[in-house]
């Protein structure tokens, strides 16, 4: 059995010291091992940005694509080989700005992949511009007079889009984060995990201290029922979405793969592709 160390490689991440993404990387490696996976059974598909580099820091299959498109690449891969554990990962710019359409439609489509957003509420790799997750009034190089646009609320958005697994975590709480990633991998269908992963260089507003002060941990709320969508929405609204834990899960919703007509258990990539003469003649006859 593989341990989390087997999912590590010897590459030193190009993240700043103190970046929340280190913990996300560690939590993913642990979650893969906890789920009983081997490195070759896992593919991490990432976007562009600081966090997008994460796919290169695993001893596993990794695909680092173009900005905003990790989700369609990941869905294509999963449809090609449903035996693989496919995890998409990227930043809040990747998922909620340039790739927002894919996020909503991946939720609707419900292909069995897990999407981890490293949400630092700022653009890091381009050296500090506003993000769709930045709070109003947030001053950056691109918003010197303060951001005047409303931030996206990804958790509420996911609930209304029909997500079957919605969770949020804080990079400092490695244990909770690991558990949520493992649960997301095991969930049959699309799972979204938004992780507050502070940027120590460009975000002086949403800092570790800020989250420690404001986050409400749903695990500590014995009354909370993650199967209740209404309660989930209410909880998010009451707390300005500053909650962590499993927010909502619908275990009944079939995945996309389960609903595709004629889609087999055997991965598509392993099936014979040569058409038989009989089948070919049948197809051709339609044009006679």
């Amino acid at each position, binding site marked *: 059995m593989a341990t989390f160390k*087997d999912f*590590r*490689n*010897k*590459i030193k991440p190009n993240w700043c010291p103190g970046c929340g993404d280190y913990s996300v990387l560690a939590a993913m490696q642990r979650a893969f091992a906890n789920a009983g996976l*081997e490195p*070759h*059974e896992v*593919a991490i*598909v990432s976007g562009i940005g600081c966090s997008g*580099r994460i*796919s*290169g820091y695993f*001893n*596993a*299959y*990794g*695909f*680092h*694509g*173009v900005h*905003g*498109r990790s*989700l*369609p*690449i*990941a*869905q*294509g*891969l*999963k*449809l*090609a*080989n449903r*035996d*693989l554990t496919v995890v998409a990962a990227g930043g809040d710019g990747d998922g909620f700005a340039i790739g927002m*359409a*894919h996020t*909503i*439609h991946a939720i609707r489509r419900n292909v069995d992949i897990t999407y981890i957003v490293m949400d630092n509420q700022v653009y890091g790799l381009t050296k500090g511009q506003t993000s769709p997750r930045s709070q109003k009034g947030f001053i950056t190089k691109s918003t010197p007079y303060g951001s005047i646009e409303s931030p996206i609320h990804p958790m509420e958005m996911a609930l209304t889009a029909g997500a079957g697994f919605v969770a949020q975590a804080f990079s400092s709480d490695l244990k909770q984060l690991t558990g949520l990633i493992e649960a997301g991998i095991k969930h049959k269908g699309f799972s979204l995990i938004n992780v507050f992963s502070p940027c120590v260089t460009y975000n002086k507003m949403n800092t570790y201290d800020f989250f420690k002060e404001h986050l409400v941990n749903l695990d500590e709320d014995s009354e909370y029922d993650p199967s209740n969508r209404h309660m989930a929405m209410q909880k998010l609204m009451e707390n300005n979405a500053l909650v962590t834990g499993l927010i909502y899960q619908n275990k009944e919703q079939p995945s996309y793969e389960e609903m*595709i*007509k*004629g889609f*087999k258990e055997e*991965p*598509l*990539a*392993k*099936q014979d*592709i*040569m*058409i038989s*003469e009989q*089948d*070919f*003649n049948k*197809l*051709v006859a339609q*044009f*006679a």
Partner: protein
Amino acid sequence: MVKQLSWKVGGQQGEGIDSAGEILSTALNRKGYYLYGYRHFSSRIKGGHSNTKIRISINPIRSISDELDILVAFDQETIDLNAHELIDGGVILADAKFNPIVPEGVNAQLLAVPFTKIAEEVGMSQMKNMVAVGASIALLGVPVDAFKEVIEERFAKKGQKVVDRNMKAISKGIEYVENEIGDMITKFRLESSDGQKRLYMIGNDAIALGAVAAGARLMAAYPITPSSEIMEYLIKTLPKFGGTVVQTEDELAAITMVIGANYGGVRALTASSGPGISLMTEAIGLAGMTETPAVIVNTQRGGPSTGLPTKQEQSDLMAMLYSTHGEIPKIVIAPSTAEECFYDTIQAFNLAEQYQCPVIILSDLALSLGKQTVEPLDYNRIEIRRGKLVSWDEDLPDLEYPELFQRYEITEDGVSRRSLPGQKGGLHHVTGIEHHPTGRPFENPVNRKKMMDKRLAKMKNGIDFENPVYLDAPHEDADLLIIGFGSTRGTIQEAKERSEAEGIKINHAHIRQIMPFPTEIVKNQMEKARKVLVVENNATGQLASLIKMNAGMAEKLVHYGKYDGNPFVPSEIYNQCKELLVHGHI
């Protein structure tokens, strides 16, 4: 009796124009006639003038004609817009309901047939198109039995009553015309055909069928005219083979999903037209950089921007060659008949895996939607070549941690072994950033140059594609060489035949492999001709420029473009040939 003629039906979109054309042509195809059908339609569903023109012949044809013999009109607009195409003594079969008038200057015979009234008597006014089919059959002199089978197949699901009513509408149409004209109009009667079984398909059908035969099992696409038929065919067909079509949120998702699926080891494709293809260009670069196979179909339509969404054009040529940023190996092929659409699509999937790069199948609206007779497709010509793909049966040696599989190993031919996610000894990284042979990001200048050279080496010695240029070039010292690509092939061929009947020596080269450009073949042909006429549906002469770039000889090259939204007709090209040879320019 005639060997060939052209028939056109027109009216408001939604009046059953398409199905009238469809039924007539399907029945005639089964009788062994060669057909070529072209739809003229607007970017709307109901209303707006629409027509279908079908050429019927006992000999092979691959082009629409200049003339029109029979025009079937459901409204006066159809007559006003199309009667000028009629030959002297042509016939207009028009619905008596709207009191049809022959426009001034048109020397045609009008037969006002009560299409609507007869249809109402039979049961439903919508069947007026079937009455019109019947009226046409009477003029063509083909036996009605050929139509019975087609009507039965088409309406079987709706029950015997509907089948009978439609057949009755056809019979009544025949009866009416026969009673009216007796033996007065016999000049449109078709000579009998060879009775051979052939197929009748649009280019998009052939591309879709080719994809299935090639083993493509996933398509991701966003609907767009004129490519949607490909996804519509595949969503009906792929589930029978375990595959599927994903209708994505946009073309960015379509192409990247295709890249993801190919990375996973499944042959996958997308299809679109100009606007959608423009959105895909960044990701096409990703496929080139990551050496991931991907097949992209571009059914060109009138550009730029939304342009002419339902009209013919060939103006994406340069964009297909150069539109992604940076430099990647890429293959662009352009089939020129529906038959080639089928075989070339199979080749496209082979090439994509053999060279591990994006392959663009460049079609155009006239080829994608023009319906043409196709000789029976040969199962034995289906061949699957997957290049240096590591198969699932192969046991790759275990990797010593933290070593990775050399997915991008430097090789002489530029192609490296391609392992798939899930294979134990194949672990590697993939990135659009410049990378090391293991796929890890690596920006070292020496490595950069090596990797660029490796990728571009794939195309250095040409590619494994049969007949990169279709040649009909019998003359060693031709007066003229005509060069084209895509749907213009049949039209050029016909113009060539007409000119040759007058003693002009013409060679014809149709470029099927556009990138890498078959320079030697083209150069050789150009050397054998006094003048070169490049025929293409665009304004700026994109193919002409490409030829000049690669083969030179700019001084003998003349570009003839048409960009009004309509395909060329043979007389246009014929006239240009004569003009060019008489005056030295056009």
